[in-house]
């Protein structure tokens, strides 16, 4: 047996180690707080503004210019049917996107990851390249496509120009390259053996995909669904371009309609609508926080 030598602790330099650690932590927190300060101030303003008559910086002012002026007048819009309609449209677009992108990405991602077919390589690189095209560049072309779709009898009313379905369709298409690549990555990480075992156990290829492979990529699908939902909920450019009037407007477009060119804009009301738009997302986040942390920390859990 050898004797173990314990190294003597290093003599303290300047501050005691404990004090030094404390200093370090303070510095770290100070830095973090400083860097998120602009965002915090922004949110603080948003919240204060929604319940104020008028604001000057972060200070609420009443009509006479003194501090105060608390009011719920900015929230009057909640009794307006138009905003509930916009919210419903937002929800419709977001959900349609989650479903459409989810199905197409998991099916496409699986095929690209696992199957050999002509044009597979070309398709993969094409989707990447196409993803680099911003939606703005495609707006005019998409306009013609939607007009053409709108001319199809009956279903044209649901997926053509100036329809919620049309907007959702365009948004799904724009989101798909990312979704397919993401899901392909998740499928690539799965071992072949499980799939082979299922084929031998008597499953068809479709059943293997549905019953065996999909459950393994659930965390990835959850993350993709979340991103897609947020993208759909906040969609502005596409709905703004391809819808007219308030009937098919979603929340961001409705918000924009409040900012009129002719009448003076009530910024406090705009702030309130903005906050209102965030509420569903906030609630969603609060309830799925744990699940989301799992996705990022653990990936697929278990063996």
């Amino acid at each position, binding site marked *: 047996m050898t004797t173990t030598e314990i190294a003597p602790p290093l003599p303290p330099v300047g501050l005691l180690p404990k004090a030094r650690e404390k200093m370090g932590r303070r510095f770290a927190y100070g830095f973090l707080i400083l860097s998120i300060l602009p965002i915090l101030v922004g949110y603080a303003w948003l919240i204060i503004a929604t319940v104020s008559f008028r604001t000057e910086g972060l200070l609420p002012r009443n009509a006479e210019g003194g501090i105060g002026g608390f009011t719920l007048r900015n929230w009057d819009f909640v009794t307006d049917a138009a905003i509930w309609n916009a919210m419903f449209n937002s929800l419709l677009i977001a959900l349609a996107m989650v479903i459409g992108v989810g199905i197409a990405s998991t099916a496409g991602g699986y095929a690209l990851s696992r199957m050999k077919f002509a044009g597979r390589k070309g398709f993969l690189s094409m989707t990447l390249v196409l993803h680099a095209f911003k939606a703005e560049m495609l707006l005019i072309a998409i306009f013609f496509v939607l007009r053409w779709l709108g001319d199809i009898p009956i279903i044209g009313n649901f997926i053509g120009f100036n329809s919620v379905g049309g907007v959702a369709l365009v948004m799904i298409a724009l989101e798909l390259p990312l979704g397919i690549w993401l899901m392909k990555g998740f499928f690539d990480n799965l*071992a072949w*053996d*499980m799939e*082979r*075992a*299922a*084929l*031998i*156990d*008597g*499953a*068809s290829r479709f*059943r293997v995909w549905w019953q*065996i492979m999909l*459950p*393994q990529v659930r965390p990835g699908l959850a993350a993709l669904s979340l991103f897609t939902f947020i993208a759909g909920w906040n969609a502005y450019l596409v709905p703004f371009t391809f819808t007219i009037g308030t009937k098919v407007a979603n929340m961001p477009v409705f918000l924009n309609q409040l900012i009129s060119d002719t009448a003076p804009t009530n910024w406090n009301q705009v702030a309130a609508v903005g906050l209102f738009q965030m509420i569903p997302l906030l609630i969603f986040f609060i309830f799925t926080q744990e699940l989301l942390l799992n996705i990022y920390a653990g990936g697929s*859990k*278990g*063996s």
Partner: protein
Amino acid sequence: MRVEIKNLSKAWDGVVGADNINLDISDGDLVAFLGPSGCGKTTTLLMVAGIYKPSGGTISFDGQVVNEVAPKDRGIGMVFQSYALYPHMSVFGNISYPLKLQKVDKAGIKQRVQKVADMMGIGDLLDRKIAQLSGGQQQRVSLGRALVKEPQLLLFDEPLSNLDARLRLTMRGEIKRLQSDLGITSIYVTHDQVEAMTMADKIAVMSKGVLQAYDVPEALYDRPKTLFVAGFVGNPPMNFLDVEVTGSDGEFRARSEAIDLVLPPDRAEKAAAIKGKVAMGLRPEDVDLVSDASPGAAGLTLGGMVEGVEPLGREDLVGVSINGVEMRVLVDKTKGVKVGDNIELAVDTSKIQLFDKETEQSLLWA
């Protein structure tokens, strides 16, 4: 079920996985595919399973060509090295999955799963999640899932290589017993030759996609037909020495700069006809330490210096340098051989193997 493999090949643009394999497996036999990593064992097995499409050749079950039959219709069960269990299902869910797909009624499923699970010793784990099982238990579940549909043919792809040595030993015995009790024809892929030797009725030795030999274990060990088989089967591996075999007046000798041995005529005859060097194979266990009590006969011994000693428990694996040629031999531990000792070894020349260095074929059994 009888399995016939004829001229079976698999290649992926340029990469050869299996090259013209011919193999007949009798009903109820366990055949081991043995070979180094990358030699095409898994490739061949997956073709039998129907997962890979052969590039050429046929696979027949009981005389019926099954090349175009889907995996699920081949009546096979398979156990993977990675277990390949479905992690989102319970143990019961895993074992019952094949039966559910066969649309067996609920009561039937329950009864059959319980029976198989009890047989595998995991009857009380049916409600567990897969992640809550040890490696050995997972492999039992995997075996249970393969057995539950009562397959005609069982395929194993290195099922034990992820388990620790002790468990491997137990499972090896259990699988062999199960297989022979149930009488299911089996193919067992392994690169562990002890596993192959102890479990298999016949062993198919593969190398670089080519079937090198297909025979019963003893034959591969005693009568290896190629240099590769001789070197691969047996642990510790056979020693090879380059010698020239000459014969005159009915006495045959194997000579090189390092050694000079008298060989039995029945072994040496064919080698003597070859001009130049041949490869002589000598297993580590076919030598004896010469002592005063048991002196070696003249011309049947080799002298050398001990360069290394690896204790294996009952025996020592001794590295000897015989006039500069390295050999590894097994010596009884009680002899107390030490590094630096000069020792004399009596060779059992009736066990010697001889190979043509060009063709790598045996000069005894080809």
